[in-house]
């Protein structure tokens, strides 16, 4: 989608770069809020919530003071680092809390795994992204990024198939042909 926007929607580079930075803030906000919704600890929730605005301000500041590139490595590193820490918070909380069913049965866990893999795997890519902007690295360089993005997308797709455990039904397993309702109130006559 970004490539399409880059080639078709934006005629000059600056609007695309602005759009890309806004997208980055938006991406961070959505993922942070997602982790926020999964956490139980109020302290951790607060940390996540209060990180959104500073990150947005930091990103704007970086846009202001740093050279205008498609991807600026510093906000990208900060974003990845913060999200990796938040996901570690999430995993830490999950292993500390007792649940009745395995984590692997929940959709939210697999979504977290997908993004965690994506940000950890691409962390080095984000560190060196500035260098690539100068066209110094070979194209194979992007294979790493593509690989982890693919893994993320596959896990996200698989997350859709995760079967969330439901509350045990209180319905009794009475066979349909078991005669328990032969009696009708209007026809009721006491047995002699």
């Amino acid at each position, binding site marked *: 989608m970004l490539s399409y926007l880059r080639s078709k929607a934006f005629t000059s580079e600056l609007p695309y770069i602005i759009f890309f930075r806004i997208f980055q803030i938006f991406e961070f906000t959505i993922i942070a809020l997602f982790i926020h919704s999964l956490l139980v600890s109020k302290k951790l929730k607060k940390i996540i919530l209060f990180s959104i605005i500073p990150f947005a301000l930091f990103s704007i500041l970086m846009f202001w003071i740093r050279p205008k590139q498609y991807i600026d490595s510093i906000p990208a590193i900060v974003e990845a680092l913060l999200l990796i820490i938040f996901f*570690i918070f999430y*995993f830490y909380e*999950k*292993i500390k809390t*007792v*649940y*009745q*069913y*395995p*984590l*692997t049965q929940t959709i939210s866990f697999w979504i977290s*795994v997908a993004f*965690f*893999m994506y940000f*950890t*795997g*691409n*962390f*080095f*890519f984000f*560190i*060196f992204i500035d*260098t690539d902007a100068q066209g*110094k*690295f*070979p194209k*194979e*360089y992007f294979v*790493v990024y593509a690989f*982890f993005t693919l893994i993320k997308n596959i896990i996200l797709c698989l997350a859709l198939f995760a079967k969330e455990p439901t509350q045990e039904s*209180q*319905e*009794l*397993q*009475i*066979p349909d042909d*078991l*005669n*328990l*309702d*032969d*009696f009708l*109130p209007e026809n*009721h*006559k*006491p*047995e002699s």
Partner: protein
Amino acid sequence: MQASPEASNGANVILFGSVGMGILAVCIIIFAILHQRKVIRYHLQLKKLEAEKQQIYLEASVRFQEEERQRIAADLHDDAGPLLATARLYLNENLVNLDKATQLQNIFSAKQIIDDSILLIRNISHSLMPPTLKNFGLESATVDLFQKISGSGVINASARFHDYRERLKEEQEMLVFRVIQEIVNNIIKHSNSAFIHLTQNATPANSYIRIHHDGKGIVQTEFDRLSQVANGLGLKNIASRIKVLNGRILFEIDSSHTYYKVTIEIPKEPIGS
């Protein structure tokens, strides 16, 4: 086109760094999954032990209650009955100094009261430990209970057992009977219904008892709530007895909203287990 050494170095750093980070991430995820499974297993074991302990307590308390009832029933029947009968004889001797008409009147009244007392004690004894249940089983005791209720003329009551060839164990029958008694008492006391009907049926694994009535009843959510509150002793007893039986109970209302039904599922236990 050959890549510069700087580019090649950078690519290597990215490659190894990313692979390393990827492996680290996978390790963290695997650790979280395995650790959480271990914790779940441990807690399930604890829960199982706790449930077993609770089951033992419940069984002990119910058994104690039943033994106590049996003792009271025996005391009432063997001691209170003869004592009252003797009191009646003493009463006859103390009345000799009164005039004849009063004597006769008093004696008649005293006899009447004592006879009623004896009958009352006998009834108490039977309600505490129904002899029919002990001697003839759940089916006879239930049918007997329903006939008595119907005979009182307050409510139209009937019970039908479709498949009770394979009897439940004695202690199970006792618990089921107490549950039925409690439900029926509640229906008579609170529901203002015109009839109660009990149907029994069975599958190879379970025995089912369903009670219908046309009064004001409760549904499962209300049962769950009421059996948690401090004053819901009757419903609590039902819940604890059902738990001891390893059974389940379901309070429902008919789709036509004309009558309520209570279904009890009792797993059949092999004799001797």
